């Protein structure tokens, strides 16, 4: 299962590296959204700094929708899904691989977004470990739940409009918990930020397990 996952993740990331769709489309949109939020809220520094954690995770959330859509768009080619199915790769491996590739893309995106936010909004992290742990857990949660719903709506004609409706309410707790945790890491108090890891951890674990179990039946339906 793990070897299969590495193979699938490697394939997806290689396609992204070569096609550069994520790099030149998803990433600029995410950075652009930060600028748009500033337009919506006004240029006052303290307003932007107070809203920064929420805006950061909102940008990551919408990018997750784009990244998962992209992750399944590359499978939509002639017979690609059938090819993947008959190749004898464990469905759980496919799930883990695709989720890992999405997670890697989201991690890169967060680093860039973070740099952009430091420059544009003038905010600084006070408790680095909390921000990193929260990001790590939230990224696993977003990638696994996103991949699960991406597979669910893959191959449907209405997937572009259906996926956000399906996935955004499910990801709402991640947005809530990750922004609160980051708020704790940025301006404190650290203890209130820490407690939100107790939402992010179980969310990531639950969707990792649910994905491994339910991806098999989903792949059969394609």
């Amino acid at each position, binding site marked *: 299962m793990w070897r299969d996952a590495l193979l699938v993740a490697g394939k997806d990331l290689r396609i992204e590296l070569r096609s550069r769709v994520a790099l030149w489309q998803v990433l600029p949109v995410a950075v652009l959204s930060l600028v748009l939020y500033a337009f919506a809220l006004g240029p006052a520094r303290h307003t932007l700094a107070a809203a920064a954690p929420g805006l950061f995770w909102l940008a990551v959330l919408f990018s997750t929708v784009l990244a998962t859509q992209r992750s399944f768009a590359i499978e939509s080619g002639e017979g690609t899904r059938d090819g993947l199915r008959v190749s004898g790769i464990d469905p759980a491996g496919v799930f883990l691989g695709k989720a890992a590739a999405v997670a890697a893309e989201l991690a890169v995106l967060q680093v860039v977004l973070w740099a952009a936010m430091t420059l544009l909004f003038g905010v600084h992290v006070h408790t680095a470990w909390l921000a990193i742990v929260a990001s790590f857990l939230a990224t696993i949660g977003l990638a696994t*739940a996103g991949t*699960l*719903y991406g597979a*669910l*709506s893959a191959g*449907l*004609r*209405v997937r572009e409009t*259906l996926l956000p*409706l*399906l996935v*955004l*309410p*499910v990801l*709402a*707790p991640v947005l*809530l*918990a990750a922004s*609160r945790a980051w708020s704790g890491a940025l301006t404190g108090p650290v203890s*209130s930020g820490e*407690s*939100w890891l107790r*939402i992010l951890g*179980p*969310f990531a674990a*639950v*969707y990792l397990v*649910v994905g491994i179990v*339910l991806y098999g*039946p*989903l792949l*059969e*339906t394609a």
Partner: protein
Amino acid sequence: MSISEKTAAVVRRPRWLRVVGALALVSTAATVWLGLWVTPPDAVQKNLVRLVYLHPPIAWVALYLAFGLSALASLLYLWRRTRSMFWDRLAASSVEVGVVFNALTLATGMIWGRPTWGVWWTWDARLTSTALLLVLFLGYLALRRVPADPEVRARRCAVAALVAFVDVPIVHFSVIWWQTLHQGATVLNANLSPTIHGSMAWTLLLGFIALTLVFVWMVGVRYQIEVLADRTGAERLEVSLAERWAEGELESPSAGGNGHGNGTTGSPVRPPTRVGQ
């Protein structure tokens, strides 16, 4: 196009469903009578308290009964040993009725909230998670409307229902924490905590029974509609297939006996490769 005997048999509701329907009607009428005329108004809330006979029972049906039943049915569908279209239809009917009751929960809650709290909406933990739940299951219904092979659709929807159901406790806890960290305790509990009058307690109990019966009846009827829709879909497919075949029979002699192999006549005898949805 006429419907066959088999389909017509489904149109007649089974006896148990008619009995449940009658009981639902009687108990709902009794709840209305007791709730509006027999029970006394509340000391603090006056006549507004009468919403207590309606709002909690609706919420019970929506949040526990309907979505719990749909998750159970979806699980039984996915489990190979119990896989049958019965569970798929039951889950779908249950979600659809549940979404209606969920919307009613929000509506009655808001109607109650406006005069008692002074606002239509507050970011209370229960309100927020109920609203998110409504959107989650609207997604399920949207997924169900996408045309697909019934088996494929059933499996996809079962997975979607389970994944959404798993999210419910996480949503609930995260919203509760969000509240307690920001605004203090919830206000919703206050309404039910005072000891209530004897006749009020009985009316509330009757309200729960009445709306549970309404739920069972609605799911039963919705299930029948689902069966009918599948039947007529299949019948229509058979009829149009037969028509295409008949066209082929008519055209083939004029096309020159065995001459339909060269493709000029569009090979009328071959059944259509892409049929229906």
